[in-house]
């Protein structure tokens, strides 16, 4: 254990040391730390129920639904790939060393604690929104963190146990996947049937996910109940949930620590997969793109010259998702629409689409970590194709625009139905959303053209975000003036969209020659 603790200690020490060697990164980290501290302080200090005071039952329903979704997706992925606390360095150096496997497991578990911080941060970022809509207990933020910690510690343990049982036979894997999917379909059916009866989304959410069966349902209900005590207070469900999760985590850890001495094979594939995900994230790619390629999809790349880039992207897309462009981002967009329907204050009903547009564009800026086109830079073909740089840039980014348009269409058509908006406003919102997406794409292109391949992807994204915000600001001010003068949602969305379009075209013109200037990434 001494050797493994040495790795942890040196790892932390060297991270701190290397940060101090890069002043720019250090300033960045200080800003991030200050930002986190201010969010934590704000989360605890801000008053609750400012916009409205929704029922605690609704909060419980939302929390159990959220954790059900988290557990379902992470455990299903766990069945496919296992779950690993380890990196390939551990496999090559620690697994082969004369160290006890249970000590190595404990070391992996300690390492996992670092990952909790990120999820805690994401949870804390939701606090202002939650406090606006619910009256939270003074310890609300603390119990939310507790629920996140319980989730982060429990799902890898459960994944590992399920994976070691299913990895022996394919039939077992199929059986467990069917049980998971069957349970998910059953819950969805119950919800839809309830919705048909009540015709009220919030009420059905409370009926299904706030029912005693859901509240005391092992793992999902327990974790959700810990989180929901942020509004409900310390009730029986909280104590049952806390005791249940504590027993589960301790029990599973002991089971793995004492009994399973031969888990290396179980975590090997998962570790290789985790390594791929880390590599993809580091390159700024969506980590989910490496999940699956549908092998039965065949097709040809049509088009000549730069157009071939576009048809190649479309073929890749078809292989990546069963419905073209429909991926996790699209699922998030649909969920966003549903959540906005639930939480949108009634005061904003005249500007509901505008509110959705602002929120979704903000999300797009943060989530769209790197558009598809940038992957082209890692291969030589885009540099070699005999076509003008403008053509190459246009066709290399066209699939991204289509993807944004599809997500926008999904989001705004749903919101249009939910908020009973007119068709023209919906269409204008979709076009504006696509134009904003184009601004972000070409802002990144121009950032790369100006700065070249910035070594740190995070810094590149930071520069892109600041650059995009500065460029968009005049348009936002203009739209606010239009809003103040005319006051119709359609005109404001139109003004915003027009500005974004002009900006996107300008950025495209300035960034056009990128393939003549930039160097290949690898």
């Amino acid at each position, binding site marked *: 254990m001494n*050797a493994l603790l040495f790795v942890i200690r*040196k*790892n932390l020490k*060297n*991270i701190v040391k*290397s940060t101090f060697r890069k002043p720019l990164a250090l300033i960045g980290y200080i800003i991030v730390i200050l930002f986190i501290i201010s969010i934590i302080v704000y989360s605890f200090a801000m008053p609750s129920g400012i916009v409205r005071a929704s029922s605690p039952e609704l909060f419980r329903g939302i929390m159990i639904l959220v954790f059900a979704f988290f557990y379902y997706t992470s455990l299903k992925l766990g069945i496919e790939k296992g779950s690993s606390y380890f990196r390939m360095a551990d496999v*090559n*150096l620690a697994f*082969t060393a*004369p160290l006890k496997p249970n000590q190595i497991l404990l070391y992996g578990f300690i390492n996992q604690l670092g990952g909790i911080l990120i999820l805690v941060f994401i949870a804390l970022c939701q606090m202002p929104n939650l406090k606006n809509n619910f009256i939270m207990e003074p310890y609300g933020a603390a119990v939310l963190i507790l629920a996140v910690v319980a989730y982060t510690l429990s799902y890898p343990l459960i994944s590992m146990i399920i994976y070691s049982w299913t990895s022996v036979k394919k039939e077992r894997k199929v059986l467990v996947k069917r049980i998971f999917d069957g349970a998910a379909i059953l819950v969805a059916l119950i919800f839809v049937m309830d919705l048909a009866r009540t015709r009220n989304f919030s009420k059905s959410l409370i009926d299904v996910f706030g029912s005693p069966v859901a509240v005391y349902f092992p793992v999902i209900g327990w974790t959700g109940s810990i989180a929901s005590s942020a509004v409900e207070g310390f009730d029986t469900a909280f104590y049952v949930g806390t005791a249940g999760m504590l027993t589960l985590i301790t029990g599973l850890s002991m089971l793995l620590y004492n009994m399973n001495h031969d888990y290396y094979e179980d975590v090997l594939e998962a570790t290789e997969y985790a390594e791929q995900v880390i590599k993809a994230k580091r390159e700024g790619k969506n980590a989910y793109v490496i999940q699956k390629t549908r092998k039965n999809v065949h097709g040809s790349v049509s088009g000549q010259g730069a157009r071939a880039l576009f048809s190649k992207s479309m073929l890749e897309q078809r292989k990546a998702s069963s419905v073209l462009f429909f991926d996790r981002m699209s699922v998030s967009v649909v969920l966003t629409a549903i959540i906005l329907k639930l939480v949108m204050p009634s005061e904003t009903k005249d500007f509901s689409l505008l509110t959705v547009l602002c929120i979704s564009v903000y999300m797009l800026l943060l989530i769209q970590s790197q558009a598809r086109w940038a992957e082209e830079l890692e291969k030589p073909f885009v540099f070699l194709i005999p076509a003008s740089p403008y053509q190459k840039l246009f066709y290399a980014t066209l699939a991204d625009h289509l993807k944004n348009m599809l997500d926008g269409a999904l989001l705004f058509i749903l919101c249009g139905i939910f908020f009973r908006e007119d068709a023209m406003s919906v269409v204008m919102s979709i076009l504006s959303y696509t134009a904003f997406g184009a601004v972000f794409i070409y802002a990144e292109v121009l950032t790369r053209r100006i700065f070249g391949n910035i070594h740190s992807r995070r810094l590149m994204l930071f520069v892109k975000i600041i650059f995009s915000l500065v460029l968009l600001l005049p348009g936002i001010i203009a739209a606010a003036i239009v809003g103040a003068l005319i006051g119709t949602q359609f005109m404001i969305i139109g003004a915003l969209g027009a500005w974004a379009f002009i900006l996107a075209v300008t950025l495209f013109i300035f960034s056009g020659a990128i393939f003549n200037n930039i160097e290949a990434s690898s």
Partner: protein
Amino acid sequence: MLEVRNLSKRFDKVQAVDGVSFKVNPGEIAVLLGPNGAGKSTTIKCIAGLLRFEGQILISNKGNKEIEAKRVFGYIPETPALYENLTVWEHLEFIARAYGLKDWEDRAKCLLARFDMDDKKDKLGKELSKGMRQKLSICCALLINPRMVMFDEPMIGLDPKAIKELKSVFIELKDAGCAVLISTHIIDSIDEVWDKVLIMNKGKIVLVKTRSELEQSGESLERIFFEVTESRKEGEA
């Protein structure tokens, strides 16, 4: 020494390794050859204790997953994965602690100097090139003074000097009584050093020959490799 008895490994419906048995004696360099998908990597991962298997693997007469076996066994993987935030020297220190080595510093310095890494002591794992990572991986495995060592495609990514140095390391390990198993595709790279060749195809060992047996028959290793791997394909067709 290494003894593999009736080793089998199945992944779902694929029989990756099928009843493989072989022995690498102390002071012997065995080379595991085979085309892609022959089962070499699976065999190596089983020996390294990373996969479950049927059969028996003994390192110095102990089961390969026992602590005593691991203490005398060095492994250089095909893709050297290192701790990104540990320096070169800290990697060696970790190995020394993990294997309970005493007075390891001088040996570590010698190994680093030998592979031109003595000026890279303070470099972090993530700052090293692929070749440097491979060299450090070799140094980590050799630091423990192994009695059995396994190299998986060891030449890939190394510069000519390091390749030359590694070949002399093979000979030194052999002279010191270490059992050496090298898995590779590149027949030329090990032509001067091997004592025993194990050719794998479709999960089975299809040929075992010593250098003297091959020399007596007057055949080249390359020719015999193609003969046993290609003839099987033709036979199947």
